[in-house]
């Protein structure tokens, strides 16, 4: 049974159990979110940038909108004084953690994050906010080459032993889902280097379009139980069409 909640005064129809962030998005209300990447990845609720204030039975609380399921009627405020203050603090802290991340600097500015002069920024610099998107993307692909290693202030995303991973296929999906471009991918035409490992690049045999790494194409083909085809989507279609048109030709 649907219920109606209000977000910043706007009535929004939703199903019980839906997350506040999804409802807001569907209704065109923007809430900043850093670690959530639905529907590609599962919600993780670790960056806290998406907090909103929720008033239920005249009681107000701050909730993490990307993982807060709405159960009954309530009022949600995405820009209340409290939210502006607390989200600003969260962004200020993220900026100290990842002082070189452009996106974080922009968010911190846009959401009026305070200057925390009394705290030292991460002495190693860096752009990773430890959201874990990359780790999940890698695990969804079945490669699981990454993990959050160490703990506390020395926590970081890494491969086992910080060495080139046996399971890494160089697909760069981790880099693709990273909100802050924290994972360097270097390409020189013949090879791609990522996570300290080199990969041969694959090009379309007909038109020469870059397809990715040979290892990632082979990985996908193995998963689909077919032979890898080194063809771009356009030429793959043409080759298959030809094959269908002349099925008995050797």
């Amino acid at each position, binding site marked *: 049974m649907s219920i109606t909640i209000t977000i910043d005064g706007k009535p929004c129809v939703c199903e019980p159990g839906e997350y506040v962030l999804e409802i807001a998005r569907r209704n065109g209300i923007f809430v900043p979110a850093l670690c959530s990447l639905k529907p590609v990845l599962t919600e993780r609720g670790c960056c806290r940038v998406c907090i909103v204030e929720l008033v239920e039975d005249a009681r107000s609380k701050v909730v993490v909108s990307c993982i807060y399921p709405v159960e009954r009627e309530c009022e949600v405020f995405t820009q209340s004084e409290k939210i502006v203050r607390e989200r600003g603090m969260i962004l200020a802290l993220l900026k100290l953690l990842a002082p070189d991340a452009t996106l974080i600097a922009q968010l911190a500015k846009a959401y009026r994050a305070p200057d925390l002069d009394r705290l030292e920024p991460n002495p190693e610099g860096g752009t990773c906010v430890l959201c874990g998107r990359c780790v999940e993307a890698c695990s969804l692909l079945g490669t699981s*080459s990454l*993990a*959050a*290693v*160490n703990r506390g202030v020395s926590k970081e995303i890494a491969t*086992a*032993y910080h060495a080139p*991973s046996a399971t890494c296929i160089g697909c760069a999906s981790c880099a693709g889902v990273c909100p802050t471009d924290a994972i360097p991918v270097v390409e020189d035409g013949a090879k791609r280097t990522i996570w300290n490992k080199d990969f041969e690049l694959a090009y379309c045999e007909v038109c020469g379009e870059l397809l990715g790494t040979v290892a990632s194409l082979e990985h996908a083909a193995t998963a689909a139980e077919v032979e890898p085809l080194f063809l771009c989507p356009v030429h793959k279609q043409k080759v298959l069409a030809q094959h269908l048109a002349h099925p008995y030709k050797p």
Partner: protein
Amino acid sequence: MIAVEPQRIQSILEAYPPEKRFALAILQDIQHEFNYLPEGSLEVVSARIGTPVAQLFALATFYKALSLVPKGRHIIKVCDGTACHMCGSSSLLVAIKQLLALEPGGRTDDGQFSLECVNCVGSCALAPVMIIDDAYYAKVNTEKLALILDAYRPGGEHDE
């Protein structure tokens, strides 16, 4: 690939059903057996229970009880919790450095000792507390310290 007798790791592995939930228990047993997680052991565990090597590495680097570098024959833990700190744990650390040339996180060159700094071990009334292997030492001062350590040196009464 394993530097340390593979059959010893194998028998640890076989003590558990090949399921992911036993990852930590297996790593703890390997740690106990070798005093560290020898090179290649994460790979063998991964092959058996299916937990990716990266995740085992994450466990190994998260828990203080697990170590990827060899530990000494005797592990000294000096409590540096609030009470022990107030009662002079830092002078114990200085003394250990003088006596054994050993710093927290390190191991002596002869492999006899390693040293760890830990937080409150729940025996504040006995502060400062030092633990060697499984033995607790209470109200340790620098004189006591030298005697205690001697018992763990090669051939000492606690060095078995």
